[in-house]
């Protein structure tokens, strides 16, 4: 089922949570709504679910206007951030709830309910837990019960609000791989909210980056990471070095400048390069480069992270262990910093891919 959000606006008092947002979620995709807190991502999810009403705009499931349907009639599975399991019901009854509350005419018979609940519990790997109560489960198990409960009503769309937010790091990583596999298995159009860029890039087919109630970019994880539409997306999707420097025709004018007479009058620009796009060298390399001093070397881990001080402020670089041995870096050593790849954002904010 395709989801279309068209020109949705929502305010809470004076605060504009969503500002004329439009979004298409293609059938069968797993899409991440990514943004800092207060970006409107959860509000958008709740509006799609029908838990909030938009002031302007519409939500369509395929070509069906959702405004005419109450939340319970939209056939949307919703997984709450804090699970919202029914605390006085067993795991079995939690999952069976959506089937039991149906009107008598469409309610499955008891053996059918039993079969379906046990199938779902098998799918979320909680076979032996049917008689337990939510308070007797760990966070990861509760999350899976919440998912099974949402899937029991055979939703056309699955919405997850910060599904892994309340779990510790290791469980979170396991569960998100598991969610990806589950999605591939059942193929239901799914939308999840997260503030963790790593999670979004790791799991989703498509990432929607949001900030201040607006969508900044929609694209595959590769697109948003490698071709960020603007400074915000670039900065939000991982570490980045930001340099204020004069630039001519998109080329930064580092000293010693190739065009000394033009350098002083060239327009000011912001140059961005991720740590892995920063190269280090003992002698001045070709291309844009400037000198810097090593402040600290973090060699624990698969890559080496180097902190440097330069006239443009603090620079972070990531290099291989081999390269570290070649360069013989130590604290206080002076090196040349070259930008292997970088982006220049002139003051109108649009991106220019260079390097």
């Amino acid at each position, binding site marked *: 089922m395709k989801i279309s959000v068209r020109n949705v606006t929502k305010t809470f008092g004076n605060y504009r949570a969503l500002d004329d947002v439009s979004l298409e979620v293609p059938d069968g995709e797993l899409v991440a709504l990514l943004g800092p807190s207060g970006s409107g991502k959860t509000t958008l999810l709740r509006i799609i679910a029908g*838990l909030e009403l938009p002031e302007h705009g519409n939500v369509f499931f395929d070509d069906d206007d959702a405004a005419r349907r109450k939340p*319970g009639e939209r056939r949307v599975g919703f997984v*709450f951030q804090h699970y*919202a*399991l029914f605390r006085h019901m067993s795991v079995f009854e939690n999952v069976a*709830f959506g089937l039991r509350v149906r009107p008598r005419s469409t309610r499955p018979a008891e053996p059918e309910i039993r079969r379906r609940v046990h199938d779902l519990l098998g799918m979320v790997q909680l076979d032996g837990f049917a008689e337990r109560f939510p308070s007797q489960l760990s966070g990861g198990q509760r999350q899976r019960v919440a998912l099974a409960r949402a899937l029991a*009503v055979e939703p056309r769309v699955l919405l997850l609000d910060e599904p892994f937010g309340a779990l510790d790091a290791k469980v979170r990583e396991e569960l998100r791989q598991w969610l990806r596999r589950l999605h591939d298995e059942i193929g239901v159009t799914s939308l999840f909210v997260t503030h963790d860029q790593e999670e979004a890039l790791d799991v989703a087919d498509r990432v929607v980056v949001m900030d201040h109630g607006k969508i900044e970019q929609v694209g595959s994880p590769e697109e948003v990471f490698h071709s960020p539409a603007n400074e915000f997306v670039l900065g939000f999707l991982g570490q980045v070095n930001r340099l204020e420097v004069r630039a001519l025709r998109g080329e930064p004018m580092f000293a010693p400048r190739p065009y000394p007479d033009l350098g002083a009058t060239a327009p000011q620009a912001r140059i961005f390069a991720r740590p892995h796009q920063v190269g280090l060298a003992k002698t001045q390399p070709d291309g844009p480069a400037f000198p810097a001093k090593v402040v600290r070397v973090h060699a624990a881990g698969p890559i080496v992270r180097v902190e440097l001080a330069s006239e443009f402020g603090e620079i972070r670089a990531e290099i291989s262990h081999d390269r570290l041995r070649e360069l013989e870096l130590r604290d206080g050593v002076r090196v040349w910093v070259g930008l292997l790849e970088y982006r220049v954002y002139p003051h109108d904010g649009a991106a220019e891919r260079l390097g």
Partner: protein
Amino acid sequence: MPPDAVVSRDLLALQRAAYASARTEKPWVRRTLIGLALTFVALLVLAPLAIVFLFAFEKGRDVYFAALTDPVAWSAIRLTLFTAAVCVPINTAFGVAAAWAITKFDFRGKSLLITLIDLPFAVSPVIAGLIFVLLFGLQGWLGPWLVEHGVKVIFAPAGIVLATMFVTFPFVARELVPLMQAQGAEEEQAAMMLGASGWKTFWRVTLPNVKWGLLYGVILCNARAMGEFGAVSVVSGHVRGLTNTMTLHVEILYNEYDTAGAFAVASLLTLLALVTLVLKSLIESRHLKPLKAKLAREARGDDA
């Protein structure tokens, strides 16, 4: 083991250590303090309780049962039971509705409603009774109209029910609002997303979650409805056999120097209080058991 379990276990250990270090007084200090507390309880609580039954049976069993089976006493008992039977269900329904509205929805005038619910606690019961006299009495606002239509409120059971309802108005709502506030509205939203109607959500999700708190509120409400004196005294008019409740009947008997009779009826009210206390502590233990079990599990560190 999740980090919060570790923290809570550390907290428990700290707590135990704190208690241990707090127990450094000399034994005689401890015994004196405990003795003092027990003496006060005995003097102020147990002695009066015992005296009620002592005086009630002072002139023997026959007088005791005669006082209870006296037609006037019997009518007072019936009126009290009737008043409670009307007030408790109505205030229960109101309390649940108010708590539901306050905790699950946002609307204008919500804080005003919360304040109004507390009003009967703030107003002296005598004044509550007077309000009804001023409203429905012969010289009151609605008095003449009521007389014209042959409706009697003041000096009639209707007035007693109204006054009792006013006084017992907050009990259920006050018990439920904090409980439901703590639980939030997410479970209801989850039920709604799963296709449950508002009615089904209420019966299957909201009510089971608050049942012990609700029962607790109902019991307190009932105890107060049967025990109310001030407000009822103002509106009743003390017509024997017609508008006397048990509390009013006790007062009349006592003023007429029928001590044994007064205490016999009083002993019934006292029994009711004792039953209420037992029920209350039973419910409290049911109420708290899941919480305690959870703490114990976390202390053992197997809540993962």
